[in-house]
């Protein structure tokens, strides 16, 4: 009996994960926010996104040098090569301010995501 129930467990877990993944991808198109890196600055420095919504950040590094997007509050970290683009997904997040910075040039490369109620 216990063995039979134990066998059912993986099937239940896989079904649950399947449903989660399907519903995840079936959601409406993710909003895209574009950010530029120029002269070791994030432009715009402040971006506003709606609360409880997943957002795709499209970061375009216009500098010839690489930068690392980092945010402890957003739990995100990614190297963006010079003159290249990168994508980072953030959220869904509750309302609040989430600072981010460029780890390679932290003195100038500073910004924040402001999450607001829609």
């Amino acid at each position, binding site marked *: 009996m216990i063995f039979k129930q134990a066998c059912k467990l993986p099937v239940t877990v896989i079904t649950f994960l399947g449903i*989660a*993944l399907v519903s*995840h991808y079936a959601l409406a198109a*993710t909003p895209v926010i574009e950010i530029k890196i120029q002269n070791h600055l994030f432009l715009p420095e402040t971006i506003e996104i709606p609360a409880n919504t*997943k957002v*795709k950040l*499209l970061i375009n590094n216009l500098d*010839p*040098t*690489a930068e*690392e997007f980092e945010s*402890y*509050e957003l*739990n*995100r970290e*990614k*190297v*963006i*090569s*010079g003159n*290249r*683009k*990168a*994508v*980072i*997904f953030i*959220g*869904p997040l509750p309302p609040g301010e989430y600072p981010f910075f460029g*780890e*390679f040039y*932290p*003195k100038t490369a500073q910004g924040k995501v402001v999450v607001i109620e829609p």
Partner: protein
Amino acid sequence: MFLNSVVLVLQEALEAALLISVLLVFSKHYQIKPRWVLVAIGLGTLGALIFALNMASVSEWFDYVGQEVINALIQLSILFLLVLLVLPLSINNPFKKPRANMLKSNFWIMAFMVLIVSLAITREGSEIFIYIGGVINQPSYVQPTLAGSGIGAGIGISAGVLIYYGLLGLPRNKVTVIGLCLLSLVGGNMASQAVLLLTQADWLPYSQILWDSGSQIPENSVIGHLLYALVGYEATPSLFQFSGYLFGVSMILIFWLLGKLISAPSTMALDAENTSY
């Protein structure tokens, strides 16, 4: 630029230093010559250089999330290799009489250690290469960056040496237990980071944040950085990340116990053989 370089390089070096020192302690107990670490560092440095040189192209794979996917793959490979490593470590008891198959087993232990360390250095080192590569063309930044990187690496190596001798100074039975615990934490950290990266790439769905310890121990504090390097500390872990961490830790412990179960009959036979003499 100087202080930034110290912090950046130290952060990467600490993780590698912990892993290398624990594995060196194990290899000493299993009478494996420490030369493997030089091979691993050489391979890892080469891997990091190749990864750094191709980072721009890799990042554009899979619709601009290639960096996350490849880094997650490296981390999961390290976890897989750690699981494979603890099996022969557990089966062979270095404090008992050596057996005929121990040499063969030690070869696999050494091979897994080389692969684990070289993969870890590839991942950590590539970021350092990209950082230094970026400032090398800006003459005013070169000196402070190189000096800061050198000091960061130096502190990281010193921490590794401290952990190594600290572990060696412990009683024999405790070394194995603490070493195993540290390896399992590294395994948990690898799985947790892989989950985080795959969520960042939108390959895994979002899951709720379990707690927020950011006000007690901020991730950007000295303790936060140390805890991150030692136990993969995250102030706001998600449910999937935490589950990944537990999965990584338990896989290492389960395979260690599995090794003990496999070796139990042969150890008993060996003990019986010893007592009959």
